[in-house]
């Protein structure tokens, strides 16, 4: 029963785990100012509930979930809201997003916390609690967990609940450390997940390079029936689809979800936050972040959301020499940041300060020689080379024929490419373009409908007017000019009133009134 089912492709990568998993999890210092983004999850941005000047308490909701796929945001500490505005956020674009800035008062005063007994709550109430506590997937994607806790319609009964503790990305150790130090609380979270989803089996997948975590989880799971399953250290075993295949030999269908095959998967840290949210009434206001690479003391920090990366790096003793790239996430799938004055979000699993030493130097791209090394390592069994040709030529339809959207952007193909072609980047580009085109199309369709509706309305109004005129009888000749003139007068008066406000150069003279008159006659006459 404990057999594993290897997935195709993948890589052995460098590990670099030992740098950051030698120290226990440190609690983050309380910074003076916290910048809390309202969009820390997949889905709609949370609606701000506070204004500058408001006093907030630790754990108070400052952003409300907006729609089904969204999550709430909470104040990480007590203090005063200083701004609700655009601030730099960790994003590959380096652009800003709506954030709530909080000046900490240093008291760390909690709101009233209300632990509940999940066994007594209706599942939908429990899901709402998770939503309003801001529980999202902490593996890096930040998908609202409440949505994943609702199975209705997707499958009759959940067969396997998978807890993802594989953590296959090099350097990253936040899941490793939380499993070592807080295994009991993770298991308490799994109880809630299992209570809601009623799975047949609960499987906990952990890469076998984390013996301490495996041991801790095995002890914590004793007597629960949950199975701790070590999986080979082989990137990307932590991908949801890959881990599912490894543990169950099931493959989620193309364009489908894992629930279609009776599987649901959560990160171990997500289970931990769910436990805190339900059993302690503490919303998600912090997370464990691996700060590693070229910093003086690489370690994991339980950091308040909104803490600047620079503060965390300072807590680790600052940068060592020759730091060239700052990466959020792992080196395989993370993105490079423009600066370190960006806040920790629920998706910040790792901050990697890297020099040219850790990273292979970028090399000029050569033409593809069709060697097929990319296809050999692709864990989604795609033909990366064909995808590349089509994405490069902007032939998006053909790229989709080769299942572009099955690509999980794991980076294996780019890593092994002897021609150093930024393959994954081509796929990201193509996906973005396809989404943008789709949006554009929807917008055009909307405009078409509105135009059509307007034409129909105008026609209807015209008919109504004609009917009215006929009723009123004796048809008067040429009411047009009169009406337009009557229309025109108040407008001119208003223009005269408005004029002084604006520059009054003669060139600013109004448009030829004839045009306006004719227009308005056409509409109103």
């Amino acid at each position, binding site marked *: 029963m404990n057999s594993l089912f290897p*997935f195709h492709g993948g890589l052995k*990568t*460098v590990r670099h785990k030992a740098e950051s998993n030698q120290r226990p999890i440190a609690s983050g210092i309380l910074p003076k100012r916290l910048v809390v983004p309202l969009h820390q999850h997949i889905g709609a941005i949370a609606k701000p509930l506070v204004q500058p000047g408001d006093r907030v308490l630790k754990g108070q909701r400052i952003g409300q979930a907006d729609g089904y796929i969204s999550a709430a945001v909470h104040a990480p500490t007590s203090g005063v809201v200083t701004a609700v505005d655009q601030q730099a956020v960790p994003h*590959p674009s*380096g652009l800003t997003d709506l954030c709530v800035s909080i000046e900490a008062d240093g008291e760390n005063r909690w709101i009233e916390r209300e632990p509940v007994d999940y066994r007594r709550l209706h599942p939908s109430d429990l899901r709402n609690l998770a939503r309003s506590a801001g529980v999202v997937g902490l593996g890096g994607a930040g998908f609202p967990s409440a949505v994943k806790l609702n199975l209705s319609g997707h499958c009759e009964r959940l067969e396997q609940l998978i807890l993802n503790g594989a953590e296959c990305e*090099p350097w990253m150790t936040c899941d490793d450390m939380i499993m070592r130090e807080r295994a009991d609380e993770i298991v308490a979270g799994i109880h809630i997940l299992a209570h809601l989803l009623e799975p047949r089996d609960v499987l906990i997948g952990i890469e076998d390079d984390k013996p301490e975590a495996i041991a801790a989880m095995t002890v914590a799971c004793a007597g629960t029936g949950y199975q701790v399953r070590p999986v080979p250290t082989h990137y990307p075993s932590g991908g949801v*689809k890959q881990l599912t295949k490894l543990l169950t030999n099931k*493959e*989620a*269908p*193309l364009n489908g979800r894992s629930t279609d095959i009776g599987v649901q998967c959560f990160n171990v840290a997500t289970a931990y936050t769910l436990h805190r949210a339900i059993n302690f009434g503490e919303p998600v206001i912090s997370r464990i972040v691996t700060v590693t690479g070229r910093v003086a003391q690489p370690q994991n920090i339980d950091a308040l959301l909104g803490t600047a990366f620079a503060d965390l790096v300072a807590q680790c003793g600052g940068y060592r020499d020759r730091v*060239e*790239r*700052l*990466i959020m996430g792992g*080196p*395989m*799938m*993370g*993105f*490079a*940041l*423009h*600066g*370190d004055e960006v806040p920790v979000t629920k998706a910040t699993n790792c901050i990697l300060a890297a020099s040219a030493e850790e*990273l*292979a130097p970028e*090399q*000029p791209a*050569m*033409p*593809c*020689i*069709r*060697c*097929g*090394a990319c*296809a050999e390592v692709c*864990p*989604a*069994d*795609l*033909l990366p*080379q064909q995808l590349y040709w089509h994405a490069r030529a902007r032939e998006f339809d053909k790229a989709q024929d*080769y299942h572009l959207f*099955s690509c999980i*952007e794991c*980076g*294996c193909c*780019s*890593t*092994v*490419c*002897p*021609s*150093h072609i*930024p393959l*994954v*980047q081509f796929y*990201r580009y193509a996906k973005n373009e396809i989404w943008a085109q789709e949006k554009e199309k929807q917008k055009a369709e909307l405009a078409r409908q509105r135009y059509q509706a307007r034409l129909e309305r105008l026609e209807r109004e015209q008919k109504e007017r004609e009917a009215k005129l006929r009723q009123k009888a004796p048809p008067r000749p040429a009411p047009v000019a009169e009406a337009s003139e009557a229309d025109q007068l108040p407008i001119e008066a208003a223009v005269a009133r408005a004029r002084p406000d604006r520059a009054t150069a003669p060139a600013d003279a109004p448009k030829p009134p004839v045009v306006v008159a004719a227009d308005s006659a056409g509409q109103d006459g």
Partner: protein
Amino acid sequence: MRFRIATSPHILRDTSVGQVMCRVLYAMTPGVVALAWFFGWGVLVNLALATVVALTAETLVLVARGKPLALHLSDFSAVVTAWLLAAALPSLAPWWLTVLGVAFAIVVAKHLYGGLGYNPFNPAMVGYVVLLISFPREMSTWLIPHGIGQAHALSLPDTLEIIFGGAGRLVADGLTGATPLDLLRTQLGLGLTVTEIRNSPVFGIVSGGGWEWAALGFLAGGLWLVYTRAADWRIPAGMLGGLATIATVFYLVDPQHYAPPWFHVWSGAAIFGAFFIATDPVTASTTPRGRLIYGAGIGVLIYVIRTFGGYPDGVAFSVLLMNIVAPTIDLYTQPRVFGARGG
């Protein structure tokens, strides 16, 4: 503090096109040494001449195309083309034959089609076929291997004189003779049986004397190439498998008129072609199943050309013919995508 922006993945394997091409060159070395042992200095002279011509032609075309020289010359693809072609030429081929073939391969077959990665046909084989069709006499003037009834050992100056001065003396001295495949084909045409023909001194233990040792050298290098993953095992496996299968069928039907499969696999350019020519990734099929089919197609075509065609060996023609269908093979052999049900 500002940081450098780059896209993921941020770690790359230490691999490059140049590295892959260099591996091919290393892997060819044992075979080339064996060839040189049996066919004299000419093999090495050809190799050197072809390398110089290839690099010159590549440089000129790159300059004309406005491409960065250092980057593209360091990918060694031109040298690989040169070596492949040179190893296939008769050891005492006149210098202009080598120059013409290599220049045609680099300029026309490679760069006119877009350069490395874009050429649909294997450049070395295009060059070879152009020479074979245009200069059949020069291309079939092979030295009789050293130690096979002939105790010749042309000195380096002699070799250079023949290559650059003319082959008249060579023929007069009776140093040349038919290759084993050539002999097999003409003698079979005269109605002799395979067993009778095999008594000729040009044959060695398995196939042609001397030739079989070169094949062993190429096999060793080829296996190393497969081991280091510079070449996909499926192409040589498919090709030798295809050749062996069809040869076995005919051999079982009539062993007196069809040479045994081991002879075919070990003769001519079969081993060399399987590991070094057919495996050129640019012009081969790219899908896993496609590569098996592509290889098998080459193997079958080689047999057909050798047995029923107008040429003693058919590696070059077979490879070029399969180059044409490689894109079609790819289209129909796409692997099953993760999550797709059924085949």
